[in-house]
């Protein structure tokens, strides 16, 4: 996406954020349209967020998760696509454990496909909601220094945020142990730090990533206590960022692993709850825009 497109999504999402706060709905917008949440990976918050967004705009929302789908019975991803296509759904929200799976589906179905997180590739609506949250607080994205911290290697959230924030003119840093840093990550236009204090110096935004527990069993870090000591965000490390730096986390948090509770729950500096709120607004904007586009195509 180009900066003007991103701006227009954020502007629309902003209006939905206001609408949601006012308690009103726009149930006629997607009336009669079908949204399928197709989740091959467990997710409560993203699925709920899309479900709520769809319902607030009046769509019929169906949730399919892997445990109830035919995939367990041996159906391939493309068989699933053909089946869904035959059902004439309008919007397909896909979460999959493999990078590129939603893109593959998108080529085979007529519905608009929204990537709700694919493998370690991308999570675009997360980056949009993060951008909206930052923009509401800081009034802009351009010129801000944003640190993305933790398991960058396995994080689709990190990748999407790097792409979006860099496009919008933020300076992006990534901080984490070398074992959790993807190769050639500097080619994405970021600065790499292995020392968190150094990396946080002068940052406006500190974005923490969730550390997947299975990373430990893969042996990429020695222990949670060590991870917290060097890469967990606590008040002492946060003090190295700007005095008014804001803290974000895509959730769900591992308290005491990547973030200390007092930082996560800081009512002034933590944006974590606001991120969830903006998530619904951003997804409403995305559904709205895609539905309109498909309408034009009809």
């Amino acid at each position, binding site marked *: 996406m180009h900066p003007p497109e991103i701006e227009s999504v954020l502007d629309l999402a902003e209006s939905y954020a206001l609408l949601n706060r006012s308690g009103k709905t726009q149930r006629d917008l997607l009336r009669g349209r079908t949204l399928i949440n197709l989740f091959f990976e467990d997710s409560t918050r993203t699925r709920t967020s899309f479900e709520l967004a769809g319902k607030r705009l009046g769509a019929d929302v169906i949730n399919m998760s892997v445990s109830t789908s035919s995939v367990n019975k041996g159906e391939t991803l493309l068989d699933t696509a053909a089946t869904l296509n035959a059902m004439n759904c309008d919007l397909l929200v896909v979460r999959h454990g493999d990078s590129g799976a939603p893109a593959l589906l998108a080529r085979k179905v007529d519905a608009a496909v929204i990537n709700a997180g694919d493998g370690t590739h991308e999570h675009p609506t997360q980056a949009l909601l993060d951008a909206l949250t930052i923009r509401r607080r800081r009034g802009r994205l351009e010129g801000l220094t944003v640190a993305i911290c933790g398991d960058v290697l396995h994080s689709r959230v990190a990748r999407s945020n790097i792409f979006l924030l860099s496009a919008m003119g933020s300076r992006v840093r990534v901080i984490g142990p070398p074992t959790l840093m993807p190769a050639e990550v500097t080619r994405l236009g970021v600065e790499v730090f292995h020392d968190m204090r150094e990396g946080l110096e002068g940052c406006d935004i500190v974005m923490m990533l969730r550390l997947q527990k299975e990373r430990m069993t893969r042996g*990429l870090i020695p222990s949670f206590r060590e991870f917290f000591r060097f890469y967990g965000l606590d008040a002492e490390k946060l003090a190295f960022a700007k005095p008014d730096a804001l803290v974000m986390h895509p959730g769900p948090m591992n308290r005491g692993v990547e973030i200390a509770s007092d930082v996560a729950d800081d009512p002034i500096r933590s944006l974590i709850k606001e991120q969830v709120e903006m998530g619904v607004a951003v997804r409403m904007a995305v559904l709205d825009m895609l539905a309109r586009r498909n309408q034009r195509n009809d």
Partner: protein
Amino acid sequence: MTDLIFENVRLLDPAAGLDMAGALLVRDGRIADLGRGFGRPEGARVIDGDGAVLCPGLVDMRAEVGEPGGEYRETIASAAVAAAAGGITTLAALPDTKPAIDDPALVRHLRARGEETGSLTILPYAAATKGCRGEELAELGLLREAGAVAFTDGARAIGSARMMRLILSYAKAFGARVVQHPEEPTLAEGGAATSGELATRLGLPAIHPAAEALMVARDLRLLRMTGGALHFAHVSTGEALGLIRAAKTDGLDVTCDTAPPYFDLNETAIGNFRTYAKLSPPLRAEEDRLAVVAALADGTIDAIASDHQPRDADDKRLPFAQAAAGGVGLATLLAVTLAQVHGGAIPLARALGLLTAGPSKVLGVKAGTLAKGAPADLCLFDLDAAWQVEAGELPGRAQNTPFDGRALEGRVIGTWKAGRRVFG
């Protein structure tokens, strides 16, 4: 503490490029002045060196000290006695003990145990993997904070390429060097001597020297991938040294050490199944020994370590293949190194550099220099005094020297730790 002045000594400090006749003044445990032309303070205790060499206390970057878990072989106290007799005042202790040094508390414990001796600073290595088992990363960050000087699994090679990559990569974040025992474990398994005519004649299971080069080649390639800092311990073959030399030229952060047996002895020392000469890596062919000497001279080798491995008599009183590998080396480190000086292979300053500034630089520590203000860790030795190594008569507990019977020139007269005499 009264002032102490060494007069009529040859001051030799490779770190500063210093080699001159002069004097050195110790005040409050530190080097207060050195050189020529400063007065003798009133009341100072005088040591007349009679032309002997005064150099920094030696830094031994690789030794087993028996603790914890191997106290029947050696204790820190007995190792400290042997070290002082060898002129060593700083020693890096290996972590593959029982239990392994893989917890921050154990690192602090070893440091404290060194301080208790009053004569020896112990720089603890910490395990690179939990339990030195080669399976899971140890807590390198916390261990480093506790004072670990570098990371290694000791005598166990880190066999898995994936594990080595992770260790090199992770250690980089904490500015720590990874030390490898360069031996491809599947090739070395069960071997007792270097492969060749002698092992064949004796009918001993052999380790091909390529087991070393293979591991060095692999790890250098991994280092190129990860960045970070790598050190190869007790390198013993010309082929491996050639790889390291080339990697240094390419600018990789790689260092290596060797140990006296690898430049002073060759495979023939095992003679008629002498288990005291069973070492790991095994003593090599003469051409490899010569390659090690050449690498000492050309700077490929950064340090000479004692590679002290205390063994109990019962560990060695076994058929050769079953006997434990390893030899003691603290008391003989200096004199066996000096044999290369007397033999004309390397100059004295270079030899001492390999025992002081070299290992300090590899480990990133401040020891091993005669700088003003530095702790007065000193070694005074007679370059030419002759003596003979005799197993059973060595200082310290363990006596398993591969140099039994070796006639040597160069003997420690005295050793000082922070200005206090601890030997001689």
